[in-house]
């Protein structure tokens, strides 16, 4: 395939979104238009991934060695593929979810645009391009957070904006260092740093890495920059689910992967103080996220806190600074996306059908909405890391990476401990909700849920698909792991 095709997955949704804002179609036609657009886009994206064009596609030449360029490599393919598969389903879900909301057209305009921008992050060939799409992602997604237009939503969107832009500002520093002190700005497995040029400034470079880790990590909600994520859960569920479980936060994690393995190079960081620090950051985030999730009783916010901890699982894998670590990060990136979008969609379905927001209102709801709660339970068990579900595989990988790293750096063993602690907390916050839903206390008020039932197929279909995927991947993900392993070793 010619590399010109690469531009399509990025630009088509953006143009499609823009077109939508001009057309002002009635709801039904709009939905059809959007679904087709998104499907076509996903199809093209997957076609690109299957027949990978090897050469790059330069969009703009900024200055001498800086250009906006797209290229598809292994890591990008994984992310792009994930996004391409999840987006059509999420869009389908959103149609039903948003039916009774206002300003749906502008919502879908931005929703679709976000697709293109996320693709841009996946396909970016160099740090500058990724930075561009990273910033754009903030901008297009901020509307989605403020969409309810309540005071709370606007405040949340502002917080989100400041955090993201701020993070990018610090990531920007690393961009500069890579431009100046790297052999090239293109992502290259193993890093691009020119050690001759760096000379004695290794400490500064490590400091810069740390700043960039935090900078890009803001989107991945690493401690102490996690504050925006729970707040942003005021957004409509399709947004929370897709953006705050897949697109936005995963972009952050993806960016950290790019930064670590494709810019600085894992070898450069391994064993330094920066390595210890980033590992600690990831661990603290995990502990913080999962503990707070237990404390939180708002259903969606609880899941948001869970996202915080799970994102740091990815980062924890990444910070093992080994191919195995990258594999671990990647597998959790994929699996967490599926299971978290599944659980968010369940929470959204509950909200949509019954307007229940708090966990303690869920008594017995599972019998009213069996499909939704089966999906939630399956995704939740997967989040805990129960074997037989997808989450176990990725946690296994993370632990294996940590154990491997632990041979040289015993500190990494702590990561396994943290992982298990968090798994326990996950069990607590997921299962208390699930048990409540399935096994209500006898005294609970059965009338509170009168008339609540499963949503229609547009919401159920994605849920069922996610649930099945979680189980299938949990039982047999051998082919996927083989692909991911080659990617993580940089040979894809």
């Amino acid at each position: 395939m010619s590399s010109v095709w690469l531009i399509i997955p990025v630009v088509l949704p953006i143009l499609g979104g823009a077109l939508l804002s001009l057309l002002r179609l009635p709801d039904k036609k709009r939905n059809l238009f959007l679904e087709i657009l998104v499907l076509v886009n996903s199809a093209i994206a997957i076609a690109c991934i299957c027949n990978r064009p090897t050469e790059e596609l330069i969009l703009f030449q900024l200055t001498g060695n800086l250009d906006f360029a797209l290229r598809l490599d292994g890591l990008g393919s994984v992310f792009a593929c994930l996004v391409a598969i999840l987006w059509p389903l999420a869009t389908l879900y959103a149609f039903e979810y948003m039916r009774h909301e206002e300003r749906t057209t502008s919502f879908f305009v931005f929703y679709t645009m976000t697709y293109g921008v996320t693709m841009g992050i996946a396909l970016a060939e160099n740090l500058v391009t990724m930075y561009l799409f990273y910033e754009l992602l903030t901008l297009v997604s901020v509307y989605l957070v403020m969409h309810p237009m309540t005071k709370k939503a606007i405040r949340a969107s502002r917080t989100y904006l400041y955090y993201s832009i701020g993070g990018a500002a610090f990531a920007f520093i690393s961009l500069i260092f890579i431009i100046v002190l790297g052999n090239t700005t293109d992502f290259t497995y193993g890093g691009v740093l020119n050690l001759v040029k760096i000379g004695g400034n290794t400490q500064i470079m490590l400091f810069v890495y740390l700043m960039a880790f935090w900078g890009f990590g803001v989107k991945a909600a690493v401690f102490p920059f996690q504050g925006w994520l729970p707040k942003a859960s005021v957004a409509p569920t399709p947004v929370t689910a897709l953006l705050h479980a897949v697109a936005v936060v995963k972009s952050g994690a993806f960016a950290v992967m790019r930064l670590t393995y494709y810019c600085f190079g894992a070898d450069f960081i391994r064993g330094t103080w920066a390595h210890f620090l980033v590992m600690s950051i990831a661990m603290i985030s995990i502990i913080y996220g999962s503990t707070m999730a237990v404390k939180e009783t708002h259903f969606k916010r609880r899941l948001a806190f869970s996202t915080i901890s799970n994102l740091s699982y990815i980062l924890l894998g990444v910070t093992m600074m080994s191919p195995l670590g990258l594999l671990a990060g990647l597998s959790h990136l994929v699996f967490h996306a599926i299971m978290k979008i599944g659980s968010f969609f369940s929470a959204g379905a509950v909200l949509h059908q019954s307007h229940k927001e708090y966990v303690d209102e869920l008594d017995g709801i599972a019998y009213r909405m069996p499909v939704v709660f089966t999906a939630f339970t399956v995704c939740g068990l997967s989040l805990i890391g129960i074997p037989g579900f997808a989450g176990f595989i990725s946690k296994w990988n993370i632990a294996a990476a940590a154990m491997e790293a632990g041979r040289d750096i015993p500190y990494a063993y702590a990561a396994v401990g943290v992982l298990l602690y968090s798994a326990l907390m996950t069990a607590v916050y997921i299962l208390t909700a699930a048990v409540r839903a399935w096994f209500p206390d006898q005294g609970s008020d059965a009338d509170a849920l009168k008339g609540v039932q499963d949503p229609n197929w547009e919401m159920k279909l994605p849920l069922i698909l996610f649930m099945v995927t979680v189980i299938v991947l949990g039982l047999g993900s051998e082919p996927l792991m083989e692909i991911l392993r080659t990617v993580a070793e940089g040979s894809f």
Partner: protein
Amino acid sequence: MSFVQNFPCFSIVLCMVAGILSTPMKGKQAKNLTLVVVTLVALMSIATLGYVIGTGESYTYMMGRFPAPWGNEIRVGILEALTATVFALVMLFSLLGGMDHVFKDINESKINLYFILVDLLLSSLLAIIYTNDLFTGYVFVEINTIAACGMIMIRESGRSLIAATRYMVMSLIGSGLFLISLAMLYDITGHLLMEDAHEAMIRLTQSGQYEIPLLVIISLLTVGLAIKSGLYPFHSWMPDAYGYSTISSSSILSSLVSKSYIILLIKIFYRVIGFDTIITSKIVNVLFVFGLIGMIMGSVSAIMAKDIYKMIAYSSVAQIGYVYMGIGLATEAGMAAAIFHILTHAITKSLLFLSAKGLNDASGRKRVYPALQGAAFRNPLAGAAFAVGSLSMVGIPMLAGFISKILFATSALGSDPKKVLPTLIVLSVSTILNAVYFLHTVVRIYTPVGEPGEFKGVRIHMAVGAAAALFCLIALNFVLGLYSQPITDLIQQGIQMFA
């Protein structure tokens, strides 16, 4: 001698003549004349730029009949022509963008006066850019000040009068310092033309004479011009001056006038004193520090500001901090970044002021934030323009601001190692602060008003000229953001031509 070589001189003279011609005219006629003149100047500057790029070297142009070292000269290089082009274009767009307000804000009998001032201002700007003679520089600095002051006070509200007074006092202090430094410079070199003064300067530095007077001169000169351009902490006059004059004035003042002094400063640094001498004098370090402080404090003040114009005005303080920080890096790359930022800031700040006015119109002329809620829906073009300007200021890729940021940061890496991290960190922090106030406002103007408020159904359609101006400025922002390479190359060449 090519005919094009006359253009710089022509454009200066043309502006003056137009000013004189406007005296008996009615406001409308004066306006048309001014627009024509500004357009002509822009075209001529472009032609000059083309010519200079073509020949690849600068030329001096003798004013009057006396040759150097006695006569008066202008000098045209790439940088001068480029700056003149951008300035003329921004001037044109600013005038177009704020034209209807000029007629609303100003007493009808005085409208022609306003355009006279504009003409004068443009001529003095061009003169400051082109001049090769220090004292001519001083004279036009004063003319610039007078014209600018006139443009502030012509609105004749109490606020604008006081703002003009403050502006005037600060400017006079600045130009006083500048003048005395010139006098001393003349004292030790015996020349006023830049080349000759520079040669004398080289001789002096080589022989090691007059070290202390030289230091005094450099300090006075820098401080004088820094005060005039509003470097923190000499910025107190800015918010009122920009916030309470008619919008074209605000736009022109913030994007051009204060920048022209910086251009003059850079020119003197390179062409008279010699950049190496400047570096050894450590004055750049002072500029660097104040630049950094300005970047932060300007933004902090902008966050505290309660109305949108003051916010933009304080943001100018921060941006001037950026420029001085670039100069303070004491490298050629830093200087190039500073100059690029001057251009970026010129097009972005005018865009912001003009669009802020559009939003303000859509909100019953209220300038406080709560009134602006949803203004972007009532005036879509202004909203979009404000958003683009804000994003550029924050430094979103594809827009001009991002390139300045990249240039600043990369040049920081090439400078004194002690300056690397402070620069980068302050740059990042300042970006965040920028995001806080600019994007806050953007979010605000794009937040629909809940229940039908007082502005229900209000929809502002901008005048054709204003709309065109906004479009052009947005386009310029994207051009600088996406195809910056030619411009940065030109700046680099221009700096080399200085030496």
